[in-house]
Every structure is written in C-alpha cells, then in structure tokens.
C-alpha cells in the first residue's frame, strides 16, 4: 500500500514502509563517471576495506572523453588503474552514463540504483528507484553494498490530454517545471502518470524522470507497464521477467493536474529552468549556437525529429549547430539510417557521443555574450562555458527550427509544410502515367 516509491522500497526491505521512515537498503548498482569516480575512490580508501560487490560497481567515461586535457587524462588513468586493481569489470566509454545504464541492462523495474550524478533520476522512467548521491557517499557504499535513505513523500503529476501538433514531451516537462518550480519537490519523489504518460513511448517518458532533478526531487518515477517491458526487451540488455509495481491506495503530499491539450512550444529562459515562456514570445531572438543532444534529448527519436526539419535545408551560417548522440548505439543507428548525412548536408556538426557541450568543457563551449538554444535539462549560469553566456532550453524540433533561422523560431510552420508534402506524396500516384496526365 502506498506511492510507487513506497511500493518499491516495501518490496526491497520485505515489510511495509511509509514516507518519513529511515531505511538501510541493499543497492543493485552504484554508478559513477570520470568526473565523480576519483572523489569516490578517495572516500573508499579512507575506510580501508574491500569492495563488497565489485560486479555492482559501474564506471562510465562520458564527461570529458576522450580526454581533452592532461588533468582529465590523469583522472581517467586513476579510474582505470583502480578498476583493474579492484576487479571492476563494468567500464563503459560508449555514451552518456544515463543512456548507457539502460542500454546495457542495468536498469529494470523495482531496482535501487545509486549514482554519483544528479541526473541518475533518469532511470526512474523504468519504474525503479534511482537517485543522485555525493561522490564520497558512493565510495562509502562500495564497502557496504548498501545505503541509508529516508523514504520520500511523493508529489503526483497527473497528465491528461493529447499534444497539439508540433508540441512535444519536452514542452510538457518544461511546463511542469514552471508549475512546480526549481526546488518545488526538494527531497521528494515526483510520480508522473495519467493517460498522457500511459500513451507515451519510452524515449519521451525518460524526459520526465530525467528532469525531475530540476525540481529538486530525490527521484522521479513512472510505473512500468507493457510499453516499458517491450522497450527493455527490444532496446536494452535487461532480461525479464520484470516486476510490475504501481501505486496502491497512495497518500500523496500533493497532486498536480495538467492537461496538455492546449499547450504550445515552451522555452526555459536563462538562467532558470522554471522561467518558462511560450516560444512565440522569444521568436526572433538571435542564437549563436544550437545544441541537440544530452541525456534529456539525445536519443534516436530526437535525432529523427530534428533531421526531418533540417533535411534538404541549410542551417544559418552565423549559427553553429552541434548534434551529439546520447550513445554510440544512437550514433550507429543515425549512420545506418542516413541521419548523419542529413545533419552534415545541412551544415551541422555531428560529434562523438558524450556529455559534450552540456557541461561546458569541450565540444561546444560558449564565448562571453553568446546565446545558445539547446535541448538540455538545465541552464545555470556558466553551464556551457562563459558565465556571460545565456542558455535557453526547448524541444529538438524547436532547436532544429532555430538552427535554420539563426534566431529562436517556431517549428510548427516547418512541420506543417512537411506534413502537407508527405500527404501530397501519399495521395499522388507512385508513378505518373503520361496518358492519364494528358
């Protein structure tokens, strides 16, 4: 009996638990990356005991990989040497940690996953409890294989309606951020559900769990269903049978209802995720760099959407357009299905996978005074490089339309033209018969 997070933890500890209780729980996987692992190693070594379950420790190289400078290289050498010495075999350098975690099968409903990264919340899209922890805390958990936590209260976000043409899940999440505010769910779980979520494919559902971090939430959760299981079976290495956990007579701290039917494209304005405005109010604002990628919107479906808008057109010559796939698997599929060619032909650069421009260290750093339009999840001051640069957040479609125009642009007219062309092509006979034409 309880909210989804209470159900997950009840199953984990084998007795009913309720919000506010403090628990010690077994952890399935402990994730860290090239930025956070060195600190975790420091805390681990201060204890001076062995790693209890080396098979549960997962290291990723994604924040600055391949290493762009000597310091990053030295950190990564430290991690590899440590992994070798400790018998840690889960080393990945094939994409953004949060994408690779589910691709490689570490994520499944009902699991408990700790990560030394704030967007560890992402895996909650698959009905598991995944939360970000401090780096040193993660190193501590290697010793015990467990962690302590306080069962969080839950805010339910109930989403209904169908999206209007040219409006996407990202726009909905930005509207949720505007409604709850940054810090609006501090230390709480945010449970996303309702008919809108039920009908949503997995790649779009991931956005909601991912950006629950921006609300201050400990975790963001979506109950697993047939859509979740099909995705896990077809697109990840996870093996069933999968736990089916759902809220049972839940007692929510707060319930927020949002009907998406009348929503328009949204933009989160610099420097807060919750200063959200209709995109049309910002139309015409010059943009120096468009960035399509990240753990929020760097998946294959995002790339298909952006490429459909850019296909056969040219991005504005004064605007840099950077496309960074969320993983090597996404990149491979983009190559196979011709998307890389589409982006290149349009004048965009497709980089190797990784966190890239999103952390302002390489792969698209901003200069003072520049403005970026991105598909990222946060837009703090200095996030992409210069503290005097500005960052705006929107959907991949809005980003692609903006890349073509060189200023913030509404994707809907372009999408409408594409839809009309597709309809005309479908209506026209496949091969024109000269007799019939005459």
């Amino acid at each position, binding site marked *: 009996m309880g909210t989804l997070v209470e159900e997950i933890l009840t199953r984990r500890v084998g007795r009913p638990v309720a919000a*506010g209780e*403090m628990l010690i729980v077994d952890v399935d996987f402990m994730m860290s990356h090239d930025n956070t692992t060195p600190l975790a190693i420091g805390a681990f070594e201060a204890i001076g*005991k062995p790693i209890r379950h080396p098979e549960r420790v997962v290291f990723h190289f994604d924040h600055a990989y391949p290493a762009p400078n000597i310091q990053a290289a030295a950190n990564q050498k430290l991690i590899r040497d440590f992994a070798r010495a400790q018998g840690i075999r889960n080393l990945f350098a094939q994409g953004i940690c949060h994408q690779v975690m589910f691709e490689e099968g570490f994520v499944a409903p009902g699991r408990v996953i700790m990560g030394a990264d704030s967007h560890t919340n992402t895996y909650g899209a698959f009905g598991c409890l995944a939360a970000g922890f401090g780096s040193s805390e993660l190193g501590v958990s290697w010793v*015990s294989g467990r962690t302590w936590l306080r069962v969080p209260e839950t805010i339910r976000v109930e989403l209904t309606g169908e999206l209007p043409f040219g409006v996407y899940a990202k726009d909905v999440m930005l509207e949720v951020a505007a409604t709850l505010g940054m810090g609006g769910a*501090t230390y709480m779980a945010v449970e996303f559900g309702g008919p809108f979520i039920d009908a949503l494919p997995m790649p779009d559902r991931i956005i909601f769990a991912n950006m629950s971090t921006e609300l*201050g939430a400990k975790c963001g959760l979506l109950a697993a269903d047939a859509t979740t299981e099909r995705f896990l079976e077809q697109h990840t290495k996870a093996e069933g049978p999968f736990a089916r956990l759902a809220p049972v007579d839940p007692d929510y701290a707060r319930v927020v209802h949002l009907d998406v039917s009348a929503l328009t494209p949204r933009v989160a304005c610099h420097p807060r995720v919750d200063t959200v405005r209709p995109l049309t109010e910002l139309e015409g604002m010059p943009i120096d760099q468009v960035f399509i990628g990240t753990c929020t919107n760097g998946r294959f479906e995002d790339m298909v959407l952006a490429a459909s808008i850019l296909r056969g057109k040219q991005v504005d010559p004064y605007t840099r357009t950077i496309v960074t796939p969320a993983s090597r698997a996404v990149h491979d599929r983009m190559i196979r299905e011709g998307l890389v060619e589409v982006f290149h032909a349009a004048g965009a650069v497709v980089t190797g996978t990784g966190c890239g421009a999103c952390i302002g260290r390489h792969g698209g750093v901003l200069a003072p005074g520049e403005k970026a339009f991105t598909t990222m999840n946060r837009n703090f001051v200095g996030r992409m490089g210069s503290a005097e640069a500005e960052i705006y957040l929107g959907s991949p479609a809005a980003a692609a339309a903006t890349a073509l125009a060189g200023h913030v642009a509404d994707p809907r007219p372009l999408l409408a033209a594409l839809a009309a062309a597709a309809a005309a092509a479908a209506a026209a006979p496949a091969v024109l018969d000269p007799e019939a034409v005459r």
Partner: protein
Amino acid sequence: MSRTWRFGDDVNTDEIIPGRYNLTIDPTELAQHAFCEVRPEFPQQVAPGDVLLGGRNFGCGSSREHAPIALKGTGIRCVVAESFARIFFRNAVNVGLAIMICPDAASIPDDAELSVDFEAGVIRDERTGVEYRAEPMPAFVRAIIAAEGIVPFLREHDLDELL
C-alpha cells in the same frame, strides 16, 4: 550555558561556509569561518552545546560537504529546522552532525535552554518545561553520528550491524 542561534528559511551552504574557505576539510579550521559573512559574531561566540534553529530548506545550494563539517567543527549539539535540503541532510548524517526535523522550530523562543532527546524525538526547553516534537532519529543514524561520521563508522563496523 548553551544558547540558541536563530536563522531563517533557505539558509544556503554559501552562507554557512563561503566557497573561498573550502580549501580544507579540517572541522576546526572551517568552524572559524562558519556564517562569517551573514553573522560575523557567530564564529567567535558559538560554544559547544549550542543549538542552531533554522526554518525551511536549511542547507540549500551546493552539495559541498564543507558546510556540515564547518558546523560540526563549532561543537554545536544539533541543528533544529523545519526542513533540510536533501543533500545537506545526507551530508550532515554522513559527517556526523546531529540534525532534527521539527515542524514547530519557529515557535522555540530565542532564549530557550534546550535539551534534545534524539531517540524519542523531543526537544525540551529546560526553563519552562515546554516540549517540541521532532522526528525521532533512528538507531542507525544515532550510531553513525556517535561514530563521528559514516567513514569512521565503517572503519570499525558494517552497515549490516544496524539492519
């Protein structure tokens, strides 16, 4: 005689310990700069056994562990607040700083002489006998705090002992 120190809502980690002092993790050294910008008399006057009273979202802002370490270095007995920012809450337990979640923290008088029962979750003003309810601190949290943090705790023990 111990005293209380009252702070408002949303006390952030930059106020607790400004970033420029985060070059060390030595508790005594950090304690010399605790609240030095917003309450300059605090580092000089705070005494072991004092109690900090906060409002909502105490310890918000960056995830720096230096903030609870600095407060621990002052020797205060406990931070009592209506609520804590998530990472501060975790960091406090892990570095061994006692904290109590007390919805009525705002009604505790400034001149109270407080005693704290962590196990029962009771804060008592010894002058008047008035008691304030707080969330009880579970045995494992008390054990971690008694060991002065989770790293020293794990050196000697195992989390399994607390299950």
